[in-house]
């Protein structure tokens, strides 16, 4: 097994929305950031991976096994965190541990205790009294405590303050130290992905627009700031998208090194994932 996740030509049709031939991989040992605006298809893709929705076509392999035939076996080794807390208000952490011990074969109660301590989650309070940050930390502690090989995180850091987010990112970094482990993290807080992702997969209106190593993206792409006149000189294959503002043009270029060579006087800035996203969604071709 080289890929923890391998999706090929995933299709899903809703009345007003489609996933169109979504294909991407999560190589073993890596963190893949799955980005896109709200409603772009991130959650639908993740739900299809987990068989929460029925797909209309395509194959999905998790941990080298087909999700339709080996569902139960796969789910023993996958930890999932969704947007929000899915445990009932009146439970305490001890109740959750008891209950999950008879759901997961390799539930590790000691490990769970360890994470509860690390996250400073109280044992004597019911979940209703937890803050949003505490609830998300609880979900993450649960996702890690059955010793999974793959973590699937759907907006696990959204709505959290920067301190809690960093605390959580640290735990993910610790998890990924083991080469057998992999993470797929969907988020629209792209600064988190700037920090931890190895690959970026960008989905827009149900289609994958971009699937690339993060370092390659950030080192190659750039933003060229120029006048309209200069912009007209560019060949169409030299840029990906452009945005016009009042006084100038901002152009997302594929190879900033090549552009620099060709137009030595040009001003080209580096780029963040957020800017790439904005260019793709709001820019013009």
């Amino acid at each position, binding site marked *: 097994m080289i890929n923890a996740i391998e999706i090929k030509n995933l299709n899903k049709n809703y009345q007003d929305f489609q996933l169109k031939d979504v294909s991407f991989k999560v190589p073993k040992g890596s963190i893949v950031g799955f980005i896109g605006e709200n409603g772009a298809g991130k959650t639908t893709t993740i739900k299809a991976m*987990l068989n*929460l929705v029925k797909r209309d076509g395509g194959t999905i392999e998790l941990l080298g096994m087909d999700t339709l035939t080996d569902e139960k076996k796969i789910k023993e080794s996958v930890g999932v965190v969704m947007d929000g*807390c899915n445990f009932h208000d009146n439970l305490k952490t001890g109740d959750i541990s008891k209950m999950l011990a008879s*759901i*997961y074969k390799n539930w590790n109660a000691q490990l769970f205790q360890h994470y509860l301590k690390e996250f400073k989650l109280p044992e004597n309070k019911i979940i209703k009294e937890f803050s949003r940050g505490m609830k998300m930390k609880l979900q993450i502690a649960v996702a890690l405590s059955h010793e999974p090989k793959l973590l699937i995180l759907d907006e696990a850091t959204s709505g959290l303050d920067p301190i809690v987010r960093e605390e959580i990112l640290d735990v993910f970094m610790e998890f990924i130290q083991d080469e057998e482990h992999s993470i797929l993290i969907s988020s629209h807080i792209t600064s988190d992905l700037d920090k931890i992702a190895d690959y970026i997969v960008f989905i827009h209106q149900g289609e994958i627009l971009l699937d690339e190593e993060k370092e390659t993206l950030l080192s190659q792409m750039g933003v060229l700031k120029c006048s309209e006149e200069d912009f007209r000189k560019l060949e169409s294959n030299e840029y990906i998208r452009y945005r016009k503002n009042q006084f100038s043009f901002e152009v997302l270029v594929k190879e900033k090194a090549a552009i620099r060579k060709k137009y030595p006087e040009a001003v080209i800035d580096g780029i963040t994932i957020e800017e790439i996203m904005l260019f793709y969604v709001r820019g013009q071709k």
Partner: protein
Amino acid sequence: MKGLILKDLLNLKSTFKMLGVMMVFFAVVFLPQGNGFIFGMIILMFAMMVVTTISYDDLAKWDAYALTMPVTRKEMVLSKYLVMVILNTLGAVLSLAVGIVGSIIMGKSFDLEILAIVGVIYLVALIFGSVIIPLIYKFGTEKARLLLVLCALIPTALILLVEQLGVSLPTIGNPWIYLIALIGFSVVGVVLSYLISVKIYSEKEF
């Protein structure tokens, strides 16, 4: 699957406590009057709890999350039916206990009629659960509650109509026939209801 059942029972912990207080209250009020109504009360209160567990699940968006765990959709449904049977049985046992303790306190011998009442209500509660669980899976808890009221009204209306028209029901001398028919009817009902629920639940998208 044990974990799923445990989850429901843990969730009902506070409800159990409240119910305990209510039970004592009803027992004190109604038992001295020799009123059999309390036995039905207790069982039905327990029978309603399976609906409560499903609304709790909805609130927490539990089902979608649970299905990311090594739990099949069949097991999700089966666990609900087992919870229903456990709760109903608990209700029946408790109402029998109330009946026995009541008889002792009142200095009467235990009336076999109580056993019959409890047994019949127990079976009716199972049928009630078998009707509502598939309705909930299909329409959600809120709509299902309304539909259940309809389900209760239609047979009642029919019975009233039959009575109004003065049709005489055939009388069978042996009450055992009624009992066996009722047992058969509930068993078939529960099994059929489970199969329908599994069918609905496997088609569901989250």
